[in-house]
C-alpha cells in the first residue's frame, strides 16, 4: 500500500549542506519544497554532551548506521567485493546536517587550475603528461564563473579567513569574518614556512572567529577552541552547518516541509521526466510517493549515484568499454605528511577543527611538474584540532605498540608531537569507479553501492613527493625526530583517512562526458538535479565543502530558473 501525497514544486533527497542550500534558496523564491531526510532531527541543543571522545569519535554516534546500509569494496575488478562492515576509511553522515554536522569546518575554494585541469596540463606539459588511462577532464565551469557562488556560500557560513594566499583565485569580497586565533604551534609553522620561502596563510574556517549574522539573518556564534569539532556537532552553534544556517532560513519562509526518518528508495520517472520519489517512513514502515515538479538529489556521493542506478536513469560506466558516465571518475584523496617529535610541551588538546596554517606552494600547478611523474599536489598544513587521548598515542619509531615502553612514550609525546599533513589531489582512473553490488543488499532490499578503487602510480608519486616537503617544514620547525609518512601501496578501507569521496555523477560541458550539466541538471532528464561532491571530475588538494557549497548555490539558481522557463539550462 503506497500513499501518494499532494505534489510540490521541489523535493530534495537528503538535508545536509546541499539539501539545505537548495531548500533555502528555492523556498525564499516562493517554491514549495519538501526535504526528505532519512535520519533524525537534531540541532545545537543535542550537542551539549559532545565532549565525549568515546561515544562520538570512537563509536561514531552521529554517523551512518551501517547495519542498515553500507558500501561494498574491492581494490580491482578481479577481486570479490565485500561489505565495509564497520566505519573506517571515511565517515558517512546521517541525520539533519549530514556529514556537514561532523565536519572540521575547513572551507577552501578549489584553485582556478582545478576547473580547467585538462586544458592547462596539456598546455604546459603537452598531451602525454599522464597515461591515457587517467580520465582527466575540465569541469563545466571556470573558477571565475563559480566565484559569485563561492562568495555566497562563504557569506552564508560566515567563513573566517585571510586573503594572503598568492595562488588563490581572485575574490570579489574579503572573508566575512577575520581569521582564527594564532597559537604557538601555528606561529612556529608560519616562521618555518617563510624561512623556506613558502607562503603560509590561515586555513579558511567555518569555526567562526566572532559572532556573525549572515545575510539570511541567522546567527553563528564565536568559536571557543574547545577542541571537539571533528566527528562532533558543535555545542555552541559556532561551527557553521546546515542546521544553524540554511535549514532555519528555509523553515522561516513557510514554504519548506522537512520530514525525518524518510528514506528515499526510488526516483520515479515517466517518459523523459521524473515525477517524484518513493520513500519509506523508517519508523512506521509505510511507503509514500512524493510527486514533485523537480527532484533534487542532495545526499552524499554514494547515495546520489546509487539512486540514479537503481532507478535506471543514465548510463552506468563500464570500465571495459569506457562507455557510460554514471559511476565514473570516483576519486578519493591521499594523505602525505610528516610527524614531528619535540622536547617542548604544547597545548595540543586545545584547538578547533579548522584552526591551522597552510601553504599552497605545492598544490595544483603552483610548481613545475616538468621533471616530476605526477600532476597536481596538495595543501600542506599544520592544524591544531584538539588532540584526544584515546585516538592519539604518538610514539617515536621503533617503540613497541603496547607494554611499558609504549605507555611511557605515548604519554610523554601526547603533548610533545604533532603532524604536518597534506591533502593530496586524486586523479580519476578508468579502473576506479562505482557500480551496484550484485550480492549484498541494504535494509530496504536494494543493492549496496560497490566501490572498485585503488591508489594509482600518480597517487604514489605525489604522496612521496609531498611527504618529503612536509618533512622539510617539520625540520625547519625544529622537531627532534621527524617521521615522513611511509610510501603508500594499495588503498585499504580500514584506517580512517578522509571523508572526501568524490565523483560518480560528474558535471560536464557535454552529455558524453558526464551526468549533469553546469547547473547540476541531469543531461537526460531536465527536471532532475544531482548536487554533491559526486559532481567533481577529479578531487583537488583541499577539503571539498567550500566548492560543494558553491555548486549547491549554482544548482539552486538552476532549479529556480528551470521552474520559470523549463527546458535545458545550457
Amino acid at each position, binding site marked *: 500500500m503506497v500513499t501518494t501525497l499532494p505534489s510540490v514544486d521541489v523535493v530534495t533527497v537528503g538535508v545536509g549542506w546541499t539539501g539545505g542550500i537548495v531548500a533555502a534558496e528555492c523556498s525564499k523564491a516562493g517554491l514549495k519544497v519538501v526535504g526528505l531526510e532519512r535520519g533524525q532531527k537534531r540541532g545545537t541543543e543535542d550537542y551539549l554532551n559532545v565532549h565525549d571522545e568515546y561515544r562520538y569519535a570512537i563509536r561514531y554516534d552521529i554517523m551512518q548506521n551501517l547495519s542498515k546500509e553500507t558500501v561494498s569494496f574491492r581494490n580491482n575488478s578481479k577481486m570479490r567485493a565485500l561489505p565495509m562492515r564497520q566505519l573506517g576509511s571515511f565517515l558517512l553522515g546521517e541525520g539533519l546536517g549530514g556529514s556537514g554536522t561532523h565536519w572540521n569546518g575547513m572551507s577552501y575554494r578549489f584553485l582556478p587550475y582545478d576547473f580547467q585541469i585538462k586544458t592547462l596540463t596539456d598546455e604546459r606539459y603537452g598531451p602525454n603528461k599522464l597515461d591515457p588511462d587517467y580520465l582527466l577532464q575540465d569541469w563545466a565551469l571556470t573558477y571565475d564563473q563559480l566565484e559569485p557562488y563561492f562568495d555566497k556560500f562563504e557569506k552564508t557560513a560566515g567563513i573566517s579567513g585571510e586573503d594572503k594566499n598568492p595562488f588563490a583565485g581572485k575574490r570579489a569580497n574579503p572573508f566575512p569574518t577575520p581569521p582564527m586565533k594564532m597559537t604557538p604551534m601555528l606561529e612556529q609553522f608560519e616562521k618555518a614556512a617563510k624561512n623556506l620561502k613558502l607562503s603560509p596563510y590561515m586555513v579558511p574556517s567555518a569555526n567562526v572567529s566572532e559572532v556573525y549574522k549572515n545575510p539570511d539573518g541567522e546567527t553563528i556564534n564565536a568559536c*571557543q577552541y574547545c577542541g571537539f569539532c571533528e566527528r562532533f556537532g558543535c555545542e555552541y*552553534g559556532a561551527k557553521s552547518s546546515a542546521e544553524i544556517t540554511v535549514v532555519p532560513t528555509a523553515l522561516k519562509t513557510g514554504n519548506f516541509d522537512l520530514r525525518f526518518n524518510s528514506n528515499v528508495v526510488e526516483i520515479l520517472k515517466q517518459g523523459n521526466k521524473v515525477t517524484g520519489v518513493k520513500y519509506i517512513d523508517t519508523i512506521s514502515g509505510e511507503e509514500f510517493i512524493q510527486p514533485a515538479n523537480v527532484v533534487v538529489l542532495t545526499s552524499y556521493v554514494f547515495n546520489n549515484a546509487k539512486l540514479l542506478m537503481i532507478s535506471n536513469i543514465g548510463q552506468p560506466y563500464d570500465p571495459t568499454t569506457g562507455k557510460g558516465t554514471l559511476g565514473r571518475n570516483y576519486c578519493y584523496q591521499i594523505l602525505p605528511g610528516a610527524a614531528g617529535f619535540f622536547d617542548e610541551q604544547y597545548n595540543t588538546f586545545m584547538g578547533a577543527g579548522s584552526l591551522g596554517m597552510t601553504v599552497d606552494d605545492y598544490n595544483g600547478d603552483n610548481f613545475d611538474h616538468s621533471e616530476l611523474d605526477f600532476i597536481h599536489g596538495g595543501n600542506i598544513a599544520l592544524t591544531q584540532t584538539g588532540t584526544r587521548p584515546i585516538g592519539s598515542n604518538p610514539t617515536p619509531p621503533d617503540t613497541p605498540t603496547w607494554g611499558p615502553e609504549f605507555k611511557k612514550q605515548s604519554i610523554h609525546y601526547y603533548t610533545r608531537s604533532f603532524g604536518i599533513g597534506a591533502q593530496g589531489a586524486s586523479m580519476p582512473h578508468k579502473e576506479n569507479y562505482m557500480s551496484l553490488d550484485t550480492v549484498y543488499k541494504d535494509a530496504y532490499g536494494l543493492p549496496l553501492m560497490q566501490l572498485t578503487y585503488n591508489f594509482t602510480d600518480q597517487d604514489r608519486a605525489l604522496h612521496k613527493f609531498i611527504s618529503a616537503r612536509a618533512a622539510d617544514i617539520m625540520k625547519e620547525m625544529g622537531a627532534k625526530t621527524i617521521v615522513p609518512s611511509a610510501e603508500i601501496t*594499495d588503498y585499504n578501507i*580500514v584506517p580512517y583517512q578522509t571523508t572526501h569521496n568524490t565523483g560518480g555523477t560528474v558535471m560536464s560541458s557535454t552529455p558524453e562526458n558526464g551526468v549533469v550539466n553546469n547547473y547540476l541538471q541531469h543531461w537526460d532528464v531536465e527536471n532532475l538535479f544531482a548536487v554533491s561532491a559526486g559532481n567533481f571530475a577529479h578531487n583537488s588538494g583541499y577539503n571539498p565543502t567550500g566548492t560543494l557549497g558553491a555548486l549547491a548555490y549554482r544548482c539552486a539558481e538552476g532549479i529556480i530558473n528551470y521552474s520559470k522557463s523549463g527546458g535545458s539550462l545550457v
Partner: protein
Amino acid sequence: MSTENNVSRRDFLKTTGIAAGTLVGGGLIGGLVGYNMNGKGTATLDHGNGTTNEATGSPKAKMFFMNERDFSVLSNATERIFPEDDLGPGAIGLDVPYFIDHQLAGQYGSNSKEYMHGPFAEGAPTQGYQSRLTRAEIFKQGVQKIEAEAQNRFKKGFSDLEGKQMDEILTAFQKGEIQMSGVTSAFFFILLRAATLEGAYADPMYGGNRNMDGWRMKGFPGHQMTYATQIEDAKFQKIEPNPLGNH
C-alpha cells in the same frame, strides 16, 4: 549531581544565553574559567547517601563475563598492554577490565551498528573486518584461547604466569600465530589493545579511567568548555581534568 558545582552545565548555558544563540563579545569567558576551576572529578565527590562513588560511579560487577577465571585473564592481559608504572595506574587500576566487560554487554559487543549480513567470505586485508562473529563472541573465544595457550605452553593458568610468559603469549596472538575460529588471533589482539586504550582514556562515566587518572597521566583536561583565553599562550597549561558527569 555535584553539590560543589552549584550551577549545572545546562543551567549555565541557559543563563549565559549561549544555547539560545545570543552570545556576544567576551562576557562569557570569565565565567567559564571560574566554572572550570571548580570542576572536580566525580570520583572524589560524596553523594550524601552513604555510598561512595566507588560503588555508584564505577560499579564493580560483571555484566558480560560469567566466571572469575575469564575475567582475570582479561584483566591481566590488559595490564600487560597498559601496565602500572611510576607515571600511575595500569589497566587494572583504571578499571579497564570493567569498562570492557560493560562494553561487551552492550551495543559494542553485539555489533548493532555494523553490517553483519552474509554471505561471509575471507577478504583481502584491505577489505577489513569480515567475521560473522560479534565482538562479544570474539572476546569470549579469545580470552579462553589465551588461557588454553597458557596451559599448553606453561602448564599453568594465564593469571599465574610471570609477566614475560604472558607477553610471549600475547605476542603470539598479535602475530596471528594462534588458531581461532571465525577470526584471526591478530584481529582479536587489535580489538583487545584498542579496548584497553579506550578504557584507560574514555570518560569515567563508562566505568574505566578511574578517578580520571588516565587523563591526568596524559595531561588531557577532559571536558572543558573553552580554551579561548588560553589558546594563544606559549606556556603549557596544566589543567585539572573535568568529567562530563559534572554537568
